[in-house]
């Protein structure tokens, strides 16, 4: 019998979208000085969700000054236990309003509601709870008896996990005693603006958190502002390089979390069914818009056929469509520009001779969509094995021996994450020692926890976010 799941859409009515949003500066929503604005659209339907202010350099200047004043007068001198109270309060409000935030995240980003509901939002709240706990314990964090904050942090975040990246940036900065000016991505500014409302609701002192919306120019004005003590960026390696150049020679402390081309390595003794789940989760989670995505599958040649057959069968079960449907596994690509990039690289994969496969799946007519895709017969020389695609596209390569697996896995300018699938514990330890990646998952993938540090090797960036290590980037050590 064919069992068809009826549509099960999550209601949009929990979200109260305003037609337009200003900048959040010094505790208030304000209009930008030169009145510029842009539109944020729902990538699943191309419907305009809201008009959002575009911050110019004067606005950025205003925000940095507000942050400076708050740092000097209120937040910096405040005892850690009092900062903790605000962070705990924010964490609780996030939990209370999690449905609203999850729906808005899915509307603005295109990710399936089951992920924003079950992954993003619980992690966002967990990050605030975790760092709230550190605020009054900084002398015990291992950075000396009385570590001091840096001052004003300029934070620029990407569109793939809008609210989660905000939490990764804001929670440790505030816990350590810094104030922040944060710029969300131009395609996904809405949950950051709702977070600004939460800061108001939590009575967070004015100027501690400032949100300036805009595109690349706004970001550049922010990181290059002389009043900034710290720059934290998550995004592409290309932009990361430009930021590193602009920050070089200044007193600004910098952390970068950039691209990746992670190897997900499957050995012949792997638990096959769970490895296949891990491969699917590794590359199709969040439409593959994940910097640590397992975008290169390295499978031992002796089991390659079996693993690929299972993988294809599993991929045929993926449900692509309306992000607000609770049964959707893969939502919309975040923007037309990203879709164009995924298409370009996939076409290059075919042109260079790799074999392309997607399960039969019907894509909606409006919006930005890309079917889950795998390429087999890929070699290290293919562009799709080297460049970050940042989409639901998996390149499959094979290896013969553990040493060859290490060699291929490390043969990339990136080094953010890697996955190992084997039943042999000793091999996991042997391999993890040799993989040049900041995060190595064993028999799992894309697992995140606020207590665990996250960050890259090589061109995947530097500095760590999360855990005790995540405090370091926001302390004068």
């Amino acid at each position, binding site marked *: *019998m*064919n*069992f*068809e*799941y*009826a549509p*099960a859409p999550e209601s949009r009515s929990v979200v109260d979208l305003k037609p337009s949003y200003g900048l959040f500066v010094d505790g208030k929503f304000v209009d930008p000085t030169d009145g510029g604005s842009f539109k944020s659209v729902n990538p699943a339907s191309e419907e305009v969700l809201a008009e959002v202010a575009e911050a110019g350099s004067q606005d950025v200047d205003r925000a940095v000054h507000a942050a400076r004043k708050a740092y000097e007068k209120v937040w910096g001198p405040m005892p850690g236990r009092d900062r903790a109270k605000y962070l705990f309060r924010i964490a609780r409000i996030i939990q209370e309003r999690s449905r609203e935030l999850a729906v808005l995240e899915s509307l603005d980003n295109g990710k399936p509601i*089951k992920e924003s509901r*079950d992954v993003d939002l619980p992690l966002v709240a967990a990050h605030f709870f975790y760092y709230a706990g550190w605020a009054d314990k900084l002398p015990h964090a291992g950075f000396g008896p009385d570590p001091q904050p840096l001052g004003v942090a300029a934070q620029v975040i990407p569109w793939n996990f809008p609210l989660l990246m905000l939490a990764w940036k804001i929670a440790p900065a505030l816990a350590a005693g810094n104030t922040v000016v944060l710029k969300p991505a131009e395609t996904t500014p809405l949950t950051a603006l709702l977070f600004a409302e939460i800061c108001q609701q939590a009575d967070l002192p004015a100027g501690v958190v400032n949100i300036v919306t805009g595109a690349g120019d706004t970001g550049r004005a922010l990181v290059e502002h002389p009043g900034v003590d710290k720059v934290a960026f998550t995004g592409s390696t290309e932009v990361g390089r430009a930021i590193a150049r602009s920050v070089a020679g200044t007193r600004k402390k910098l952390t970068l979390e950039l691209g990746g081309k992670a190897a997900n390595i499957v050995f012949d*003794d*792997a*638990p*096959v*069914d*769970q490895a296949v*789940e*891990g491969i699917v989760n590794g590359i199709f989670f969040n439409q593959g818009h994940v910097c640590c995505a397992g975008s290169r599958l390295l499978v031992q040649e002796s089991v390659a056929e079996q693993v690929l057959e299972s993988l294809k069968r599993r991929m045929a*079960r993926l449900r692509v469509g309306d992000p607000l449907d*609770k*049964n959707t596994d893969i939502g919309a690509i975040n923007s037309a520009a990203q879709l164009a990039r995924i298409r370009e690289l996939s076409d290059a994969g075919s042109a260079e001779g790799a074999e392309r496969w997607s399960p039969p799946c019907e894509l909606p007519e409006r919006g930005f969509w890309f079917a889950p895709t795998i390429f087999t017969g890929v070699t290290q020389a293919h562009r799709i094995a080297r460049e970050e695609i940042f989409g639901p596209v998996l390149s499959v390569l094979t290896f013969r021996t553990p040493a060859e697996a290490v060699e291929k896995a490390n043969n990339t300018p990136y080094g953010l994450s890697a996955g190992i699938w084997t*039943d042999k514990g000793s091999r996991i330890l042997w391999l993890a020692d040799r993989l040049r990646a900041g995060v190595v998952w064993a*028999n*799992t993938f894309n697992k995140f926890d606020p207590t665990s540090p996250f960050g890259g090797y090589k061109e995947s960036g530097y500095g760590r976010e999360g855990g005790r290590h995540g405090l370091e980037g926001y302390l004068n050590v």
Partner: protein
Amino acid sequence: MTATATSARSDLSELGRSETALRTFLHGLPGVDQVGAEQRAAQLGTRSIKTTAKAQAIDLAIRMVDLTTLEGADTPGKVRALAAKALRPDPADPSCPHVGAVCVYPAMVPHVAEVLAGSGVHLASVATAFPSGQAPLEVKLADTRAAVAAGADEIDMVINRGAFLAGRYSEVYDEIVATKSACGDAHLKVILETGELATYDNVRRASWLAMLAGGDFIKTSTGKVPVAATLPVTLVMLEAVRDFRAATGRQVGVKPAGGIKTTKDAIKYLVMVNETVGADWLDPDWFRFGASSLLNDLLMQRTKLTTGVYSGPDYFTLD
């Protein structure tokens, strides 16, 4: 089927002849990662099945129920009443389908057979010294033959867990083969008692062992030990029947039993069947629920869907 699968088929039939071959094969099956299997089962449990899909699932689940009573206190009167309920689960609604089977002890089979005759509802009986299986083989086989002779067309046997856990796979295998032959035309469901096998690796091996020995169904539990059917155990068994069919061409059914009490639970299992083995198993011939109280919850939810209101438990028969 490809040439590989054909040659695999002939290889597998030889396995039971040698303890070494059987052990090598079972221990060569891919392992199960506990965390991953449990995570996958939990993810499938978050599917949202509403409106038409829910109605479809409820009717299917009712048709898949093996309505069960396995008590020392069972009497002819009790099992006749249960059989009557199996035929007409909801007397108020003739559109309600009948259940898949009635499942009773061998001594109760004749009483149930009278009621079910010609109805299309199967008559299952537990045999082989259920639930422990701790009896001499001859006794177990006699138990089986008696149940079949009295009218059971499905036999739910227990495997010899003691032998399995001691690594004497051939002994388990031979007992299943002997029981299958004692069944004659009756379908054989092999109860693995997964709660006593403890690990998912064991569940996968026992599943293959039962299938290799000729079982028509693999079933999780007797319902007589503390841990009965769970979603991850059923997931591992579904993967086993899927892989077994791919290797041999023979389809084997799956029956989770014990602890499935609500419509919500049942729907989670159906989602898991749908997304693990697909439409071929979404049929009472290939998937069953061993349950008793589940049926009334399914009926309550069914009535709620058709009438829009919940009726109290007093509107449903307690048999």
